[in-house]
């Protein structure tokens, strides 16, 4: 019962660092994103209805970093695609900057789980990065400058004339991130962005995202199945329950704005938060289920 009511606030709970956040709305600014009682069902060709999301609600404040964790098949990708306006919820609403989402919002970018397939193999890296900029009123030079800036921001130098298939997986993912940054969105959604890169690249990319968030002041929502990663990167972890999915628990991560792979991950608070999230993820289905 309590799960379905965690619809409200961003960082409202001030006291404990972990726990179910109260359903009071944020007192500060209007949320950047607001997911309100969203449910989503897929209907197969034979007419079988599969309920994936059951009344998911949460807000994301401007410049907040939210991590969403949940078992695989829980509907995390479904949730992200719905927030991104790529499909409509079966019921409920999503608001972005106060407007109801009925299609992809202009100020939002999405980084896909399948990064290697989200880049166009027939285009050079530069063309890939400038492709979304073509609808903005920018000169060719301006587009190229933005692309070069974004590529250097993600630590890729002079590779604009290469093709995606000439790069390693980690570099391709950086290009996908650079494309999103060059687009200058207010909010960035990422679907298991580092799931298929090696451990070293992964922690590099985690820090890269944290640095970019600071530099560009973006709101970021990341889906991940790595609990350490979720706690390390975010201001708040949203734990999803199994299917049909709803928000099981929201954990505030009060680790400050400065994160460091070694220092942060060895803090006792980090370990405690990580255990809280892990316990929430592992809680058997049906225990306190809606």
């Amino acid at each position: 019962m309590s799960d379905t009511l965690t619809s409200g606030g961003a960082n409202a709970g001030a006291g404990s660092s972990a726990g179910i956040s109260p359903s009071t709305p944020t007192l500060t600014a209007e949320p950047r994103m607001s997911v309100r009682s969203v449910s989503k069902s897929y209907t197969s060709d034979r007419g079988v209805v599969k309920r994936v999301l059951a009344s998911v609600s949460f807000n994301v404040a401007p410049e907040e970093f939210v991590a969403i964790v949940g078992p695989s098949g829980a509907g995390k990708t479904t949730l992200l695609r719905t927030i991104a306006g790529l499909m409509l919820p079966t019921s409920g609403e999503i608001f972005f900057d106060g407007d109801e989402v009925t299609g992809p919002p202009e100020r939002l970018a999405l980084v896909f789980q399948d990064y290697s397939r989200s880049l166009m193999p027939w285009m050079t890296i530069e063309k890939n990065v400038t492709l979304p900029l073509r609808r903005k009123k920018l000169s060719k030079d301006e587009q190229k400058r933005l692309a070069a800036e974004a590529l250097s921001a993600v630590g890729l130098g002079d590779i604009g004339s290469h093709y995606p298939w000439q790069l390693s997986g980690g570099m391709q993912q950086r290009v996908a991130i650079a494309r999103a940054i060059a687009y200058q969105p207010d909010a960035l959604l990422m679907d298991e962005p580092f799931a298929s890169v090696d451990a070293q690249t992964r922690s590099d990319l985690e820090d890269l995202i944290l640095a970019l968030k600071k530099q560009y002041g973006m709101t970021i929502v990341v889906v991940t199945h790595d609990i350490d990663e979720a706690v390390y990167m975010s201001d708040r972890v949203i734990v999803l329950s199994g299917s049909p999915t709803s928000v099981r628990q929201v954990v505030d991560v009060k680790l400050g704005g400065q994160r460091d792979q070694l220092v942060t991950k060895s803090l006792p608070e980090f370990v405690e938060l990580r255990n809280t999230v892990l316990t929430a993820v592992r809680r058997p289905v049906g225990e306190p289920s809606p």
Partner: protein
Amino acid sequence: MSAETLGVRRSINARRLLLPFVGLIIPVIGVTAWWILSAQKPSFYFPSLATIWDRFVHTWLLGGATAEIWPTLSSLFLGYAAATLVGITLGVVFALLPSVNRFFAPLLEFVRAVPGLALIPLFVIALGVGIETKIGLVIFGAVWPILLNTVDGIRSQDLTIRDTVFSYRLRFRDRLFRVVLPSASPQIMAGMKVSLSISVIVVIATEMVVSINGIGNFLLKAQAGFDLTGMWSGLILMGIIGYLLNVIFELVERRVLRWHRAMYEGNRR
């Protein structure tokens, strides 16, 4: 075998130099054998290759019937270009507008089932015996592989690419020319290759039946006049034209699909 492959890989230059000539071995042997055998016992139906060659040079290279080449090639090119344009355009419309597809698909299936050459009388009545009929029949014969491959290629587009296109709200023309068509280009090119052979067949066949000029017409007249040597020279000309068209097509394809080839080879490594 893999060791051999490696060896060849290492000496890429040698491979580049030799590879085009490997394919020449069989033709050279064949032509030599033909030359020798036909010289020993020339018959009416199989004149010696030396005679045929002499005739080929005089007829096609030194002017005897050079004028017949142009009507054939021009209707071939115009028809093929139109078939490509129509095929890709209709393919895009059908693939992107499922309702149009549902509406017209049965009609198209029916029309497609009619053999192109059976329409010669109809086209002649409508368009006469000039270049228009040839072009019309080439379009009718060659449009289908391009159309169907375009639809297939666009339909099989990767879902992640589709999501990317929509989430970045690309303009329609960017979506079409920078994403949809390039991603379908391997299949479109495959269709265009089949259509090229069909176009050659349709042009020659049409010229044999209705035309007053062209290589097909020449072949028919040579056969009717029992000019077997002339007929053989025409066949050789058609072989050469077909071969050159294929070479040109492959050069273009190699350029257009460079990314596809490189990606495929990269993945296999």
